């Protein structure tokens, strides 16, 4: 798991660098899910960057599309496109749009960004997988604030109704949305009970503990029902001045802030 942890750190550095260079973007929620994304891309998902459309690949849907910097970093490191492209995040005419675009970017499964829609897409893919009696799985990463969208619960109902045991969803539960704490803006608790009531198997884990995350994923893969892993995370994780601060939801770090962030992430080593 050491190599996954190293990848997670690397993803975090790239999130800081790419959003700093872009001058906009969403570092807070990208950093909170970096461990989840690293675990999936470097330990769980069966993917072949040489054949991004191969039939037997696992599918990953970033339904919280604003965490695109985390996804792009993982796809670049995985080899779907050159890492140099990350410096052109959000630039006119480039492949890395502000939110994921499946047409422009190799490796991006679904165009997302409008919250609440990705789990439905994942359910549709899972239904197709079942029709074809496929072995691959569908993984969807949702934001916690996203769960306020009613469509998520339509999808939850449908996944359960159609017995989509090839669908694993993960909630990045950093407990912060743009306007503040979820409990202040719009309470989503009791979350695990809600998913269970919709017929899902549920795990609640520390979303920065790679072993715990991995164990939950492995159990979810064979649980025989749609699975929800509630990953408790810290928004801005890894950068002291961003941790737990809703204000870092959709704001890019300045050059100076980025330098400080990279120092912290690399444990004092400022070189790439």
């Amino acid at each position, binding site marked *: 798991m050491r190599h996954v942890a190293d990848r997670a750190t690397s993803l975090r550095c790239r999130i800081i660098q790419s959003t700093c260079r872009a001058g906009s973007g969403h570092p807070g929620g990208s950093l909170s899910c970096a461990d989840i994304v690293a675990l999936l891309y470097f330990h769980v998902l069966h993917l072949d960057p040489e054949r991004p459309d191969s039939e037997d690949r696992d599918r990953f849907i970033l339904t919280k599309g604003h965490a695109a910097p985390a996804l792009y970093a993982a796809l670049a490191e995985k080899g779907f496109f050159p890492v140099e492209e990350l410096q052109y995040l959000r630039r006119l005419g480039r492949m890395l749009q502000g939110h994921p675009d499946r047409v422009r970017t190799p490796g991006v499964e679904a165009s997302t960004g409008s919250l609440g*829609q990705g789990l*439905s897409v994942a359910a*549709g893919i*899972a239904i*197709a997988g079942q029709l074809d009696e496929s072995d691959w799985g569908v993984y969807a990463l949702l934001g916690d604030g996203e769960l306020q969208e009613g*469509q998520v619960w339509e*999808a939850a*109902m*449908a996944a359960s109704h159609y017995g989509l045991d090839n669908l694993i969803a993960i909630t990045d539960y950093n407990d912060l949305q743009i306007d503040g704490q979820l409990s202040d803006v719009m309470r989503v608790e009791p979350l695990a009970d809600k998913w269970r009531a919709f017929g899902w198997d549920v795990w609640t884990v520390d979303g920065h503990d790679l072993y715990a995350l991995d164990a939950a994923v492995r159990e979810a893969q064979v649980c025989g029902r749609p699975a929800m892993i509630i990953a408790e995370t810290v928004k801005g994780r890894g950068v002291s001045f961003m941790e737990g601060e809703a204000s870092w939801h959709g704001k890019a770090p300045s050059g100076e802030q980025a330098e400080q962030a990279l120092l912290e992430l690399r444990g004092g080593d400022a070189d790439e």
Partner: protein
Amino acid sequence: MSDGSDLPRESTRDAYGRALVELGARRSDVVVLDADLSGSTRTGWFGEKFPERFFNMGIAEQNMMNVAAGLAMSGKTPFASTFAIFASGRAWEQVRNTVAYPSLPVRICATHAGITVGADGASHQALEDIALMRVIPNMTVIAPKDGPEVERVIPAIVDHDGPVYVRLGRAKVPVLSSEDESFTVGRAQVLRDGGDVAIVACGIMLEPALAAAETLGEQGIQARVINLSTIKPLDEAALAAAAEDCGAVVTAEEHSVIGGMGSAVTEFLSAECPVPVHRIGIMDRFGQSGEPDELLEEYGLDAGTIERAALRVLKK
């Protein structure tokens, strides 16, 4: 030309139900989704025949459209049906962002479009769906005129690039198609030739359009009647020819005059071959309960209104 009263009649939704069953038999990639209206939309006929490829998503249209997107991303050819008001309105942003933006081949076949929904009233009468769908990039919009045209449209769009919106109705409409007709996406059809005024219509408005042309003919005015079943992409050549040959155009649709087929025609003609155009449609108001025929008369969607519009536009 007949006014349609003695012709066989059927609803376009019935033809859709039949076409889906026929398609399902030869295409195993075709899957059908509905939102608890499979009896009304006629997708239930497909469901009876191919239950393993039919997915009732319950009363959850937004989820249905995005599940369809996921299926389309995975090698399936999804047809998603519900009433037009919900397909185009309730799920608009799902269609815009997750179906059309990535140009996924989801076929949205919406029934119960227009005022002829009848007694259910304004809440269920989609008078805005053409506007809502044609404004979305990558989207193709088709409003067939009768059952046989639907049966040509469905196989024609199955392998079409990108998303397609097909507008279908509840009311029985006369069969105006001839046996040897064909359908090509984006190609308008001249149902009656004439060089004095062009009447461009879609859907159920072809019947009164032809009737108006007949009456105009008795007054020595030769009207060209065009079936603009594909509203997007527009058949610009056919419209330009009509404008140049006739010099005056009337459009007729069972939809708001704001943003619909008439607007699309006017947008094109005003830029490329400006001629006087009069648009017939619902005049910026909601519908109400009533019998389809009563509603068509109440809202001015009849042959007399088209005829008067033609005479008016000819004076300009």
